[in-house]
């Protein structure tokens, strides 16, 4: 934004829109009941993830022998009972759910970062350079999208081996084409702007223009895609865990908990219900938040 043309541009944009974006966001959210529910759910998940050591009544990995499949409310060897019962190995279900918030948040945030940063980089390069680079990168993206995302994620997990970092990488890679497509089409119109020409005239290199003038302008769509993709990323982790290729045990992953609990579902349904509800509510929260954010940040959709 160092050139006069760029400054003028920014001023026009700010004059046409609301002056204080942060204030606007809150005011908009207040008028949307679903958005408020979403932000509340997310706030709780983040709080729980941060405070898991403090609020968890038990060690999530500690096995209490003789307490396997204990019912909710059953007495435990410590002075706090098993509030949600104990699992098939005799571990406290509530504590595992609280610690599971960390895995869920970690996998969600990091894999979306991999997906959006990777997608944005490919999208910017492809859209800005055009020509052969664009052609090759986009055909590759098309090829990746023609493979169902869960099949690709499973294949990547088989290649990389089971660990939380590989889960993050696999889910992130699968998400790259979606960000790429949106960013590329945004870049195609941005590169025709006067401030890009101006930057080129004063002698900026392509790399500098991409980093300093194009990237800031695709940030809004990237944030929207990222937030909307978070719920999907957490779901994909759950699906991978369900098929035995997710975050490896003994880590407490909600998807993994549901998957193991299925074996006991007819006799011990309490093993499955709590993690399944937590997982579903969290994904719901992120999905609603992504929707709300898109309504608020995307002026074209504002009055729908």
């Amino acid at each position, binding site marked *: 934004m160092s050139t006069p043309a760029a400054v003028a541009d920014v001023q026009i944009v700010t004059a046409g829109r609301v002056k204080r974006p942060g204030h606007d966001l809150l005011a908009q959210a207040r008028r949307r009941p679903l958005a408020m529910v979403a932000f509340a759910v997310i706030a709780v998940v983040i709080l729980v993830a941060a405070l898991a050591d403090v609020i968890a009544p038990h060690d999530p990995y500690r096995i209490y022998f003789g307490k396997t499949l204990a019912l909710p409310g059953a007495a435990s060897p410590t002075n706090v009972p098993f509030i949600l019962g104990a699992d098939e190995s005799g571990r406290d279900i509530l504590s595992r759910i609280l610690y599971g918030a960390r895995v869920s948040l970690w996998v969600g945030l990091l894999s979306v970062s991999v997906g959006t940063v990777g997608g944005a980089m490919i999208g910017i390069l492809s859209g800005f350079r055009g020509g052969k680079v664009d052609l090759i990168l986009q055909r590759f993206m098309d090829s990746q999208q023609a493979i169902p995302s869960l099949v690709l994620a499973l294949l990547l997990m088989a290649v990389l081996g089971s660990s939380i970092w590989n889960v993050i990488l696999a889910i992130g890679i699968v998400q790259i084409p979606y960000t790429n497509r949106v960013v590329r089409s945004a870049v195609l119109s941005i590169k025709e702007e006067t401030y890009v020409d101006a930057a080129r005239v004063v002698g900026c290199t392509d790399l500098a223009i991409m980093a300093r003038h194009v990237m800031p302008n695709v940030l809004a769509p990237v944030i929207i895609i990222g937030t909307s993709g978070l719920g999907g990323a957490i779901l994909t982790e759950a*699906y991978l865990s369900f098929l035995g290729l997710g975050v490896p045990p003994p880590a407490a992953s909600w998807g993994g908990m549901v998957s193991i609990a299925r074996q006991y579902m007819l006799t011990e349904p309490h093993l499955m219900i709590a993690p399944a509800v937590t997982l579903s509510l969290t994904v719901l929260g992120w999905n609603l938040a992504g929707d709300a954010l898109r309504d608020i940040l995307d002026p074209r959709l504002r009055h729908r």
Partner: protein
Amino acid sequence: MLGYILRRLLLTIPVLWGVSLIVFIAIRMVPGDVILAKMQGEFSTKPEQIAQMRHDLGLDVPGYVQYIRWISGVVRGDFGVSMNTFRPVLSEIVGRLSITAELAILSLFFGTLIAVPIGVMSAVFQDSWIDYLGRLLAMLALSVPSFVIATSLILFPSLWWGYFPPLGLAPFFERPLENLQQVIPATIALGAILAGQIMRLTRSSVLEVLRSDFVRTARAKGLRDLLVVWRHVLKAALIPVVTLIGSDFGRLLGGTVIIEAIFAFPGMGLLTLTAIQLRDYTQLQGNVLFIAAVFVMFNLLVDLLYGVLDPRIRYS
């Protein structure tokens, strides 16, 4: 029109070639190969036997030779032989298609039937409690993992009424009633996700059409609101919905790994999953290429359908 179709068909070639490369390279990077996966637990196998099997399966030559052998077979319609069952890859796929197609058709039918009316109502009564309920329902359908829905559909009937669907998938054309009992819970679980997507698209599409000039004209000449929706809005608003359903169908024909794994339905999804687990190179390559080809073809069909449904679009 014909020129357009031909050009689009030509464009699918590099995409499918890319798919073939991705899957070929990826599966060979997985530690262990098909022989080791099959020999697990058999300690008596001699090295010479393993070498012989490698040779029989064509795995003793460099990777690029394997790729050229495979891809030159594929372009002639020969996908090779499964390294697990030693049956032709294509006949394995054809054998799995019937249950996958049944799931796809039924769940799309179910999903559309629920989603379109709710989506329309949600748009017509925008920002009322009906709208909020509809949107929440759509979001729920997209947020609850399908294995949770599927498991609940087995769990609760059995807890409350002691009801279990019969075991072992019955062929639809021999014992249709038994088959439907087994397939319907899976259809609901799968249909819910589709319903969520269709509901959201229907809502936003109807909202957009409601704001267009011809709707204002219809209102201005005194048509009642519901009649306007029925006669003028739906026809225009459902075009994108039809295309979504078309491309969903193309994707579903590739199988649904999770649902087929839960209900143990021997469809395409389960075939793909076992191929990954067993490192069945040829079967996985064939499956993924087949799934991608079906997906690409259905997207082409959807684009052509768009032109038929929307007279403003012309292909040149």
